């Protein structure tokens, strides 16, 4: 589904991602783990088009997407969330989501001036999509609340919903459970499973090991920009290099 071939990114003298070759399978939960500064978010930035790789290629769904702009990558079906999501606090949650489906519409400025049927249909479609994804993430009850008034966990769910509104094939989640309590983390993990059941592919960065080990089908471990291991949770848990670099003795397979 998504493949990286020899992906490298240098910022001046610093190599943030070095020669990473891996692939993420369709309809699976893929996880990227590693210590802070390992290059996880940089990897996401490369895949979603924010950074141009210094060398290497990215292939999505059989198509070379290396060097495309973020909005072009998004149109092809790559959605992502950020560690923190800036919502428009003065508007309702639903209002915040309507723009998410804009990329699947075609109306232009002149449609706006003349209030054409195409524009009205597009707006209707975007609103319906927003309601649909809000229902999917279980937030229909706060649809008409100000974005400023919802909880941290609800903000995370809204970020998921915004990504889903773009009709993606793969969703990249950057620390989806950062800053929420253990109970809410379970809820978010269940939501991620629900996305898989719907046919989506997920790739996530996370530090909560309990969540990753029970959730992921495949784990990629980065350290200092290099991939030091990839495999199933069981394989990763027993990998000596991973234990030394990141997991520590607690997670070593007994």
């Amino acid at each position: 589904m998504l493949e990286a071939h020899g992906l490298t990114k240098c910022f001046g003298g610093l190599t943030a991602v070095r020669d990473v070759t891996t692939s993420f399978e369709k309809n699976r939960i893929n996880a990227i783990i590693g210590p802070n500064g390992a290059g996880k978010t940089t990897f996401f930035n490369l895949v979603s088009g924010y950074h141009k790789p210094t060398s290497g290629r990215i292939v999505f769904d059989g198509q070379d997407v290396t060097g495309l702009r973020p909005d072009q990558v998004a149109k092809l079906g790559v959605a992502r969330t950020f560690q923190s999501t800036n919502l428009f606090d003065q508007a309702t949650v639903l209002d915040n989501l309507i723009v998410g489906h804009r990329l699947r519409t075609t109306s232009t400025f002149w449609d706006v001036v003349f209030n054409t049927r195409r524009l009205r249909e597009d707006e209707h479609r975007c609103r319906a999509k927003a309601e649909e994804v809000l229902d999917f993430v279980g937030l229909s009850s706060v649809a008409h609340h100000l974005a400023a008034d919802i909880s941290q966990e609800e903000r995370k769910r809204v970020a998921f919903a915004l990504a889903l509104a773009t009709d993606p094939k793969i969703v990249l989640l950057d620390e989806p459970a950062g800053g929420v309590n253990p109970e809410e983390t379970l809820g978010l993990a269940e939501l991620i499973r629900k996305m898989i059941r719907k046919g989506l592919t997920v790739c996530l960065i996370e530090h909560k090991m309990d969540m990753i080990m029970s959730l992921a089908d495949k784990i990629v471990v980065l350290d200092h920009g290099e991939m030091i291991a990839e495999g199933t949770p069981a394989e990763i848990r027993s990998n000596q290099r991973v234990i030394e670099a990141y997991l520590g003795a607690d997670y070593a397979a007994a």
Partner: protein
Amino acid sequence: MTTKTWQKPLLAILLALAIVFPMVAANDYYIYVMSLAYIMAIAAVGLNLILGYTGQLNLAHAGFMAIGAYTVGILTVDYGVPYWAAFVLAGLLSAIIGFFAGLLSLRLKGHFFSIFTLCVGFMIYLIIEKWDGLTHGTVGIIDIPAPAGIGPIRFDNTWSQYYLVLFFLVLSLWLMSRIVHSLLGRAFVAIRNGEDLAETLGINLMRTKVLAFVLSTFYAGLAGALYAGFVRFIGPAMALESHTFDMIAFILVGGIGTLFGPLLGAILLTWLTQSLQFLQDYRMIVFGPLLILLVMYFPQGLIGYWRQRQVRRAAASEKDRRLQRSALSSRQEVQTNA
């Protein structure tokens, strides 16, 4: 939901008040001041699109208003072009120059963009001031003709000009309302909330920002063209950044990123300035603290504050209804169980 039902009557009342205003105004001078406030409001509505909705602080806005005003001044006075032809050209020229200025300056982000546009504005000022042959330099352009009559309607007195300006104000607000309530407007707001997130949602940043910039300079150009025909004297100083800051003040007071905020701010501040005229420059002693208090207690501006309360109230009443409903159904359950 309830806000929508009485929004239309409220707008009708406001429009009626605006139409009646000249008839009840004590003298022509008041009508003149109100017309000027409307013209500044049109320019501020344009600035609000790029600043309030798209989140890009363009400090060259007064410069683009001056381009509009000078287009009308030069074409009508020096080349005998009819006012309305010059009026249309003024909007177009501002937008065209805005397109190229936007293409260049929007490559920069945040504060760098603002600083760059500050320079663009000052360059416009310098060109107007130094290019004597074209712009009459520091002397300015005098005796600009009033807008030519259309059919039987003539625009040769303060009353008729007031209604002309009001007409364009309503037109500007109507178009802006279309824009900001559409998917396009939502794309602008998405950029303001976070450029990275907007791009992730498939919004072409550069194209969308340039469009907002061009539209806002078009508004500035038309406001400048109206100003030239209304005041009938223009000088290079109107391009200075201090006028942009006036418009920013209108937007902050009325409500940044709200449709009517710039208009409310323009009217309030214009009349406040008028009524404090006797203090001369000391009026800033009143202005400054007022602005600070406003930013502290109403950071969203007056209309922004009001709108926020409306939404909160609607959400709360919806929640109440839901709670009542669930309480009712659980009581029924208890009864059936018993």
